[in-house]
């Protein structure tokens, strides 16, 4: 191990470093390997976007290529026309409405509830907190059937109430995330405000809430893109095509027994991923931090 042999005081020559230990070689190896793997991972998505610009014949003949030989943007207007006389404009309007309102509801409620759990001491707090964490593991299937029966009795099928109402209590995942965040805010600030005569509500609004911005942005991003992708619950409640979300519309639009215009299907599929990607690229830092911290501090 030792490079110097002390008994003879002679310098022992180190064996020459093999080429693959050379920093530059290692760097090239590393980037070559990781970049190839990353490209393989991205290939299906790039392929989808590329295929959405291929003319009908190229979709089958020039299948493996990402880039079309002759770009054919016509797929987009073709797909946008939708089905049954309803265009994708309607579906996007529905999805935007639902994802925006749903996000506002669940994130704002989550912030309020999180403050209660994190900063107010009350009887039963630990019990309710434990129950809330347990609800994270509940399969939707045990809740959805009775909910459906009641909402049907109320005549709320084909409305957004069954999708939005359950969000008034926030979401356990976001509540937990925001609680973790509030805990990292020093209690001294609360105490100082309290000495100044602020109530709990006042502390929440003036001390805690302004500092919650990063946590709220993270929750809002997750909420928006989960809501955008939501499928099972809308599938159950929204049956008339005028109310379809983009996810539901895409399913009907791509029905193998009906549609054969794959260019249009690819175009609408790629388009439906656009909002999610824009959010992902703009707010990547928040997403990474959100996932890392809620995963770790549990």
């Amino acid at each position, binding site marked *: 191990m030792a490079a110097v042999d002390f008994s003879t005081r002679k310098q022992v020559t180190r064996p020459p470093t093999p080429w693959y230990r050379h920093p530059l070689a290692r760097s090239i190896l590393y980037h070559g390997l990781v970049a190839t*793997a990353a490209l393989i991972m991205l290939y299906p*998505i790039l392929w989808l976007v590329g295929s959405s610009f291929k003319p009908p014949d190229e979709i089958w003949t020039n299948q493996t290529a990402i880039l079309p030989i002759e770009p054919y943007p016509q797929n987009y207007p073709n797909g946008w026309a939708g089905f049954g006389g309803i265009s994708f404009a309607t579906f996007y309007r529905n999805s935007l409405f639902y994802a925006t309102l749903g996000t506002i509801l669940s994130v704002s409620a989550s912030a309020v509830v999180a403050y209660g759990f994190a900063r107010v001491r009350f009887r039963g*707090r630990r019990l309710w907190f434990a129950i809330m964490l347990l609800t994270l*593991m*509940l399969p939707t299937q045990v*809740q959805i059937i009775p909910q459906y*029966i009641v909402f*049907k009795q109320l005549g709320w099928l084909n409305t957004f109430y069954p999708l939005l109402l359950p969000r008034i*209590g926030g979401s356990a995942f976001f509540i937990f995330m925001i609680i973790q965040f509030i805990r990292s805010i020093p209690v001294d600030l609360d105490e100082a405000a309290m000495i100044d005569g602020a109530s709990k509500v006042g502390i929440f609004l003036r001390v805690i809430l302004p500092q919650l911005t990063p946590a709220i942005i993270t929750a809002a991003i997750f909420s928006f893109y989960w809501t955008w992708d939501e499928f099972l619950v809308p599938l159950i409640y929204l049956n008339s095509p005028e109310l379809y979300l983009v996810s539901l519309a895409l*399913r009907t639009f791509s029905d193998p027994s009906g549609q054969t215009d794959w260019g249009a299907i690819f175009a609408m599929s790629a388009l439906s991923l656009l909002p999610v990607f824009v959010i992902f690229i703009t707010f990547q830092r928040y997403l990474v931090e959100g996932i890392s911290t809620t995963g770790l501090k549990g």
Partner: protein
Amino acid sequence: MAAATLTKAKRRKRSSFGQDNLVGYLFIGPWLAAFFLFTLIPILVSLALSFTDYNVLSNSGDFIGLDNFQRMFFEDRRYARSVNATLKYVVFAVPLRLVFALGVAMLLNTWRRGVGVYRAAFYAPSIVGGSIAVAVMWREIFGNDGLVNFTLNLLGIEGPNWLGRPETAIWTLIILAAWQFGSPMLIFLAGLKNIPKHLYESAEIDGANAFQRFLRITLPMLTPIIFFNLIMQLISGFMVFTQAFIVTQGKPLDTTLFYALYVYRRAFELNEMGYASAMAWVMLMVIALLTALVFRSSSYWVHYESDEGPA
């Protein structure tokens, strides 16, 4: 969870924070109300329904005792196939996803330039993975003359009918799941960054090679995170729905008729809500049991640093 007890103990010492029941319940009120209305009561109603033959169209049902459960376990062949399909999916998809997640996280756990871009690239499939768009694309890729078979054809291989054959259909969904290892990867990555550098340095001085360092340091230090990821992935694995609904529709021969999909079919396509409720309750019990089992086993393999306690 443990952090709750920790901070609570600390806070109890602070006299200025008195108990405030009314304010506390006001703040958690929205959650509490939603919990009772949309979770607890429905779950209990669902339990009650599972002993009936409730039909939503006629809004009527009779108490039929344990008939639903008897039918499920002894008569319904599709139920058995659905359980089989789900188990097979979970057994392959969850470990695959975790292994990919850990492997890539270790590759990305470096300060080289460009790592941020790679991280985004590996995470991207997960951000779109749950979407209908990706499921539709998957159906095309594995279709009879889809991308996979087209490529195989170029290599002179005649690809099978992936979605039509019972042996292959489920694998298209397992591959789809394995492709989306982004979230556990990010969690592993954060965990890897938390492992103290000096552990590796002293191991290296002691002559441990890379594999030994992985086995003796990385894995034990990561066990709490492996544990967390395992639980989350198990639960989501058991609830897989959308992908099977779009890509394979449960076909062929029910080999991809995952549990959640079968519950949906019974409840909302065949209007057998009593039977579907019984199935959902069995699912709840299985998930609860499995989670409890993993939790129980954790004392044997999850390593917490004694001086810090579970973070």
